[in-house]
């Protein structure tokens, strides 16, 4: 480091020649926040919406919160508010919490896939000098789980271990060496049981199911959850079928691969309260589970969320190791820190479900999609985790953005003796989305039309309802498709590239916050709450429970507060780490934080804004409606020289009450159908995305390199384009890993073979394509300033886009992810054999001659473009239901107009014989309906 530098912050050197700057130095003039200045920074008209008189374009129309925009930060490329902590190494993650007198905890895990724990003898370990506490399952018999309906986990094994790596006991010792040594001295006697590894076997009756659900257990199988959903009529499809696609897919399990391994520090303070430091995405659920397992009321536990080194869904379950640390710390009377090594992260897993998915798509002679049939068998591993939800998401999130004639879904999630699967970025929607989008590519090929036009002519418009009854508000799907088509020069390339080069398209659709969150009572709690507090110094403290896991939620919340109050971002401080000071928040999952927390924050800020305006009005003796806020000043609209400083107004409004405090909350509007499972997939808004990917395939080796991606994502309104782009590119990276290289490999004996980053292949910088992020702003009517999610949805389209591009490059479809060179090469050789070729370089590439349908599609999509833009701008507010394209009346629900239309959530007896793989779970009866059921 340059040594010729005098370390004296601010010595007349605000700016240093070497480009470094004086941190912490901002020219706020004393007394701190701008006094009564005659001049101030002008409103940044570039960031005031055009309907409010500014220059910010609003192609999708206005928003009801536009009038509160002040041009301060919303829409600007804003570095994360905690970025400086991260680049200086001062951000404190789980393992960075070092308390005085700490002990190191170590977990003893099962070496067997499935076994009964007969005895645990800890006496040897306890005798080892340096060992302070040892604990086993008997210390915490209460069950927990992230979903209240499926509490099937224990802190440590109580009766059985259910996968290799399942927790059996734990020790706390003075240092890691001793703890590791002690772990090996614990003697455990197991009775090995017959494990189930293949999810297909999970559908069969066995002697000893992995869990037992009593009267609700399905036969004596390992089926954890089964779903059946039918909308429309299956029979009527077949006559009009012009093109038919049937794809049988296999998806491997995928791990989140966050860089920070799990870590936890537990400490019972002198008052007997638990202080638990953990990198959690959802501290509130951990809080609840801790209270259950430790048998301590929630108010005696303070969950402190440390910085989170990546979550992606993998840190959203309450985890047994968190309980272990707390139990050990209670026994030892000293803080206990447990840090995982990378292998343990894989044993805990909660990654994407390994799945067998079958997709059938029909299209009629007008190239309308007459139906989707999806059958998804998903491998849940040893525990339920988020399984109920995943089982639904695999079906219901695949329907939109398309208008369908019918939709049939059968899904089953089975327990197997593997580390549990759970929620991962794009929860439940990723695999089926891939299968559907590839199916549509195939349908387009069979109809001899452009797959982009096929999609454009079958989209649901904005402000409509999907076939499953989800309420779509803003919808930028059409613009997304058009922008990527344009950006990638699609028409010049598609089906025109030489062998080995290909281009493909994929779309995505995802929830922006779940309408019915897990622990939630619609009558008592809002979805999100934010408190604001302003003391006399003028700084704003925002209390929110939203967990910033790197996605920038603290930044988004700070931004909207700064925007409403027209304060520099530096005057807004977000406090979100402790459950003691933060209002309950349901956590960072289902892409809910921006939508719900920013809305709650705007609500609170508006309350403060009103108080400030009233105070200023009183001082100036004008009506508050005539005042504007800008840059720490409140002034009369028509004459900016008449005004007061923000501080003066603040102090005036604080005269009688001291600090200004406001609380804002967000609750979703009532929505959704009444059928069983109607709530799964409901969201106050949905995001849409479309990607075009270009690949190079080496036909000699089967190696695929993705070279270019055009990624359009409709996030409603980009509060912070820098972060939105970061999310898009990051999603692209993660999806690319799943489609090209990442897989959890279970060997013949069911053992996980690659629990490390050496063999679990995450793309490095060299594998990354050039991503062109394209932000589509459709302005959601209910989103904060129009915003929707951007964290998960952008992951979905990359998988099918790459698979479709590979087909374009070599004319082979591979339905088995990841597309590793061996699989690609095997597919190439098979094709060569079939065509009797010797040289892979002679492989034919697919070509495209448009049929006359293409014209029709273009016409239809042109008509729809008009329809969509009118609906988006609310010029047409008539109702629109899925089915209008098929001639239904948009004002009536389909079941009232078409007697063959049905909504059913249970197969009737005539259907039982021709159900798919997962559907066959319905042939079993629940115990309570069985003669002699247990």
């Amino acid at each position, binding site marked *: *480091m340059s040594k010729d*530098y005098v*370390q004296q*912050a601010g010595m007349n050197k605000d700016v240093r020649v*070497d*480009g*470094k*700057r004086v*941190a*912490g130095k901002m*020219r706020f*003039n004393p007394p701190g926040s701008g*006094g009564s*200045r*005659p*001049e*101030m920074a002008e409103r940044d008209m570039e960031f005031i919406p055009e309907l409010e008189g500014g220059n910010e374009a609003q192609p999708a129309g206005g928003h009801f919160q536009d009038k509160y925009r002040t041009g301060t930060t919303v829409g600007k490329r804003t*570095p*994360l508010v905690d*970025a*400086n902590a*991260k*680049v*200086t*190494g001062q*951000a404190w*993650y789980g*393992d960075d919490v070092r308390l005085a007198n700490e002990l190191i905890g170590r977990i003893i895990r099962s070496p067997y896939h499935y076994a009964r724990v007969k005895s645990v003898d800890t006496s040897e370990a306890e005798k080892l000098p340096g060992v302070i506490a040892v604990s086993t399952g008997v210390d915490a018999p209460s069950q927990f789980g992230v979903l209240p309906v499926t509490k099937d986990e224990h802190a440590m094994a109580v009766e059985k271990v259910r996968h*290799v*790596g399942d927790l059996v006991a734990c020790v706390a010792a003075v240092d890691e060496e001793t703890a590791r*040594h002690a772990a090996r001295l614990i003697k455990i006697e197991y009775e090995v049981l017959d494990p189930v590894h293949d999810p297909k076997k999970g559908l069969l009756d066995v002697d000893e199911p992995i869990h037992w659900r009593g009267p609700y257990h399905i036969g004596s199988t390992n089926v954890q959850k089964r779903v059946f959903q039918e909308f429309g009529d299956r029979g009527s499809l077949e006559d009009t079928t012009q093109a038919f696609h049937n794809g049988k897919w296999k998806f491997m399990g995928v791990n989140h691969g*966050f*860089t920070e*391994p799990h870590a936890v520090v537990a400490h019972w303070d002198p008052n007997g309260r638990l202080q638990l430091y953990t990198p959690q995405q959802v501290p509130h659920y951990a809080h609840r589970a801790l209270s259950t397992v430790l048998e301590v009321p929630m108010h005696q536990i303070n969950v402190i969320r440390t*910085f*989170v*080194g*990546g*979550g992606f869904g993998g840190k959203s379950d309450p985890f047994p190791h968190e309980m272990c640390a707390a139990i050990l710390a209670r026994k030892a009377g000293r803080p206990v820190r447990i*840090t995982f*090594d*990378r292998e343990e992260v894989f044993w805990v897993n909660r990654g994407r479900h390994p799945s067998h998915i079958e997709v059938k798509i029909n299209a009629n002679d007008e190239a309308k999609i007459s139906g989707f049939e999806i059958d998804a068998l998903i491998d849940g591993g040893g525990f339920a985790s988020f399984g109920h939800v995943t089982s639904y998401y695999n079906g219901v999130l695949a329907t939109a953005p398309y208008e369908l004639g019918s939709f049939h879904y059968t899904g089953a999630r089975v327990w197997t003796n593997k580390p549990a699967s759970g929620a991962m970025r794009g929860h439940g929607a990723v695999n089926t989305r891939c299968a559907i989008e590839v199916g549509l590519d195939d349908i387009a090929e069979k109809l001899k039309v452009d797959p982009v036009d096929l999609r454009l002519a079958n989209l649901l418009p904005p402000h409509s309802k999907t076939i499953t009854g989800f309420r779509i508000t803003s919808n930028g799907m059409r613009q997304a498709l058009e922008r990527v088509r344009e950006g990638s020069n699609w028409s010049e390339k598609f089906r025109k590239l030489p062998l080995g080069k290909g281009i493909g398209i994929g779309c995505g659709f995802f929830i922006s916050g779940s309408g019915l969150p897990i622990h939630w009572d619609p009558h008592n709690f809002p979805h999100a709450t934010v408190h604001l507090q302003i003391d006399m110094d003028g700084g704003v403290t925002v209390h929110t429970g939203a967990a910033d896991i*790197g*996605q*920038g939620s603290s930044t988004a919340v700070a931004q909207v507060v700064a925007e409403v109050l027209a304060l520099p*971002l530096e005057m807004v401080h977000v406090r979100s780490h402790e459950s003691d000071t933060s209002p309950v928040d349901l956590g960072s999952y289902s892409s809910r934080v921006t939508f719900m927390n920013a809305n709650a924050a705007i609500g609170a800020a508006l309350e403060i804004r009103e108080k400030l305006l009233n105070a200023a009005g009183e001082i100036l003796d004008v009506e508050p409606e005539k005042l504007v806020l800008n840059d*720490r000043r409140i002034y009369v609209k028509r004459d900016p020289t008449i005004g007061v400083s923000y501080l003066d107004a603040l102090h005036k409004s604080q005269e009688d009450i001291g600090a200004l405090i406001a609380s804002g909350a967000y609750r979703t509007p009532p929505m959704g159908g009444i059928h069983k499972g109607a709530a799964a997939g409901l969201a106050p808004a949905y995001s849409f995305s479309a990607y075009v990917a270009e690949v190079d395939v080496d036909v000699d080796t089967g190696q695929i390199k993705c070279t270019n991606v055009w990624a359009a994502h409709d996030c409603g309104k980009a509060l912070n384009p*820098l972060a939105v782009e*970061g999310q898009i*590119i*990051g*999603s692209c*990276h993660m999806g690319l890993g799943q489609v090209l290289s990442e897989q959890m490999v279970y060997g013949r004996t069911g053992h996980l073979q690659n629990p*490390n*980053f*050496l063999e679990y292949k*995450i793309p490095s*910088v060299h594998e*990354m394509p050039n*991503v062109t992020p394209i932000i589509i702003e459709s302005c959601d009517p209910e989103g904060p300033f129009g915003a929707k999610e951007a964290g998960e949805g952008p992951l979905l389209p990359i998988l099918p886009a790459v698979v479709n591009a590979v087909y374009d490059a070599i004319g082979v479809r591979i339905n088995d992810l990841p597309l590793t060179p061996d699989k690609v090469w095997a597919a190439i050789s098979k094709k060569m054999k079939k065509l009797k070729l010797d040289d892979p370089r002679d492989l034919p590439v697919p070509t495209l001659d448009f049929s006359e349908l293409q014209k029709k599609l273009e016409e239809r999509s042109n008509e729809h473009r008009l329809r969509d833009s009118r609906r988006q701008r609310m010029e047409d507010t008539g109702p629109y239901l899925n089915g209008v394209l098929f001639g239904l009346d948009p004002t009536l629900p389909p079941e009232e107009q078409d007697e063959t239309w049905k909504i059913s959530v249970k197969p009737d007896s005539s259907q039982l014989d021709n159900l798919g793989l997962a559907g066959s779970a319905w042939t079993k009866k629940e115990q309570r309906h069985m003669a002699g059921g247990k």
Partner: protein
Amino acid sequence: MVGEDFVSMIPAAQSEIWYGEVNGQTKEVIAKSNSILLDVLRDKTGCLGVKRGCDMGTCGCCTVMIDGEPRLSCLTMAHDVSGSKITTVEGLSDGSHLAPIQQCFADHGGSQCGFCTPGFLIASQALLEKNPNPTEQQIACAIEGNLCRCTGYQQIVQSIQAAAAIHRGDAEAVASNNAAHADPHPSGPEI
């Protein structure tokens, strides 16, 4: 970790005095002779900015500069580098003055969750010290051993390019870097 029998592979090690110049300060600590550098830095010298992501040389989170070279501290025996000059992320800034590379990571979205950031910063700083004018390919090669799960690398590469411009003394880049952190709301004189 998952296994029944305890096989002690490494005989109990002696403690010894380990010393080094960590971030410009001479440190002397007592450590086991078989300690790895990552543990010594995190547990003994208080450099908690050095991160452990995998412990087996696959993630790059633990990268530190040893005598000017970026190395993986999880694969380095502390004993072997005793006496060396070691720079961790904490040593990049002068007090609270951020180094250009840090500032650029913050400003260009090079850091999301931030756990990989210390490793990336060191790897890129080492590159820039040798080559203030790297091509995109050279940047990629410099950070190929570092894993980032959040950003998809693109904004990291952009951050490094921006920092390179400052290192070259590219006037505009220096100015814009400063401008990015001038008072966002310059105020008139107080009256």
